[in-house]
């Protein structure tokens, strides 16, 4: 990355990615705001009032961090998965492959685009949430670090999915059958302390638990899992997924004959 030429290429890919999701903002930025508004109304307001408190805060306050995180995860993943797969499908990925653009630059450019979209969505959803519940922020920097690491991780996951995908169906299988169940079982709507001990253990194998809890700790100062352990887990996953993405692209898997 010391090569300034790569920095120009990186900026180009990142601007191209941001232009793409901003051009189709009705498809990329508006739906999360609408979906989350419905969650806040139904789960937070209507059902939440009957549930009462969870971990010492109102149910609405409890689920807000998880719902923001859910938007971040979904948007980071789908942005990179669909953009990179479209580039493969239309073959315009070749524009980068014939140029002196390093594998790392391609990864950073696409992941940067996914992170940018998910952070914008996070801000939008947070603003929507603030209409329903007063937001307390206990650990601002923990929130920032957690959201960036989570967005990066799922952007990388989306990239890896797109590398292997051969059809548009292939980029919807993982979100439907893996990502959504893991997110819903990732402590967004409940504290894992409510679960029997065995299922608490099982839940801890779900990486999304760590993200949601670190993020929630940043807002309300309460977490099922030590926030710094959660950050450590996030960093490890990022390194593993980053390395895998680099190896796959460097070998030209899915993109070179």
């Amino acid at each position, binding site marked *: 990355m010391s090569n300034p030429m790569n920095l120009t290429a990186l900026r180009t890919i990142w601007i191209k990615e941001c232009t793409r999701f901003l051009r189709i903002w009705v498809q990329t930025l508006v739906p999360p705001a609408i979906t989350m508004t419905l969650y806040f109304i139904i789960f937070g307001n209507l059902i939440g009032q009957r549930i009462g408190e969870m971990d010492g805060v109102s149910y609405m306050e409890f689920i807000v961090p998880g719902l923001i995180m859910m938007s971040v995860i979904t948007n980071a993943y789908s942005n990179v998965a669909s953009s990179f797969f479209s580039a493969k499908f*239309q*073959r*315009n990925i070749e*524009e980068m492959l014939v*140029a002196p653009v390093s594998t790392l630059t391609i990864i950073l450019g696409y992941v940067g685009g996914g992170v940018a979209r998910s952070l914008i969505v996070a801000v939008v959803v947070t603003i929507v949430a603030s209409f329903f519940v007063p937001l307390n922020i206990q650990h601002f920097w923990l929130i920032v670090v957690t959201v960036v690491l989570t967005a990066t991780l799922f952007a990388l996951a989306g990239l890896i999915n797109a590398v292997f995908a051969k059809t548009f169906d292939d980029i919807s299988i993982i979100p439907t059958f893996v990502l959504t169940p893991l997110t819903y079982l990732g402590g967004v709507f409940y504290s894992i302390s409510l679960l029997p001990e065995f299922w608490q253990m099982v839940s801890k194998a779900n990486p999304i638990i760590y993200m949601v809890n670190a993020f929630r700790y940043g807002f309300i100062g309460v977490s099922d899992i030590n926030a710094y352990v959660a950050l450590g887990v996030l960093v490890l996953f990022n390194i593993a997924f980053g390395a895998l993405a680099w190896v796959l692209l460097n070998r030209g898997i899915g993109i070179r004959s």
Partner: protein
Amino acid sequence: MTKALEISGLKKTYRGGLQALKGLDLTVNEGDFYALLGPNGAGKSTTIGVVSSLVNKTEGSVKVFGYDLDSQLADVKRCIGLVPQEFNFNQFETVQQIVVNQAGYYGVSRTLAKERSEKYLTQLGLWDKRNDPARTLSGGMKRRLMIARALLHEPKLLILDEPTAGVDIELRRSMWDYLTQINGQGITIILTTHYLEEAETLCRNIGIIDKGRIIENTSMKALLSKLNIETFVLDLDPYDGHPTLDGFTMRELDNHTLEVDVPKERGLNRVFEQLSAQGLKVLSMRNKANRLEELFVDLVEQGRNQKESVE
């Protein structure tokens, strides 16, 4: 003379076992306008794919302006501008976004890329379309867009894979003029084409590839001199009876058209002399087939026959 491209012993076997290149050797000098011809599936696109690093080679070496594909890949890429056979840009981006982004991948700053985009899009007649999404362009415009995109980082070697496929005659000729002009400015050009007239008109040197090997690599002039017999179609004033031509094979198509096979050593003068002696007036004349086309078919057939006899 500096070599723009040096390929030696290039082999490519695809997953699944298809051996597309079987030890291909090829040299193209700097400043050349080189045609790579071959039947479908001969290995032209695979060769271009390897040189432009879209296809991983199995064996062999490739050098571009002395830079080695394996150890100096970034330098190799900087030297090359590629115009692929199929449209491979983002159809939703505008014309200017496509070319400016491509320059960015080569490290050209956005400001400089925008300046250059005006130059090249104007030269290729696309400046007025710069804000239009690429999907709204006609086929010919899309081809020209790919040429502009390949030139924006100002490469020393331009590789065009079937650049005029599906392009109308007028546009094809204007693209030929443009390519001749940039070749005159020093850019080495390699093109593959199915239009043999295109190769004959534009290229100084030629390589014929078949079944993954180069079967002919020579100058266009030397190649055309190998043509022993040419077939001409003569348009005459309508006549009665049947003309004769001693020493030539001839076919009467109707009462004013003759098709004559002319061996090179005999020349056309003897045809005209005999027809004049019979009171026949030649109004016009043309080659029945493109000269290169006849040679191409001969060479490919010869190559295959030789290979079969060896096997």
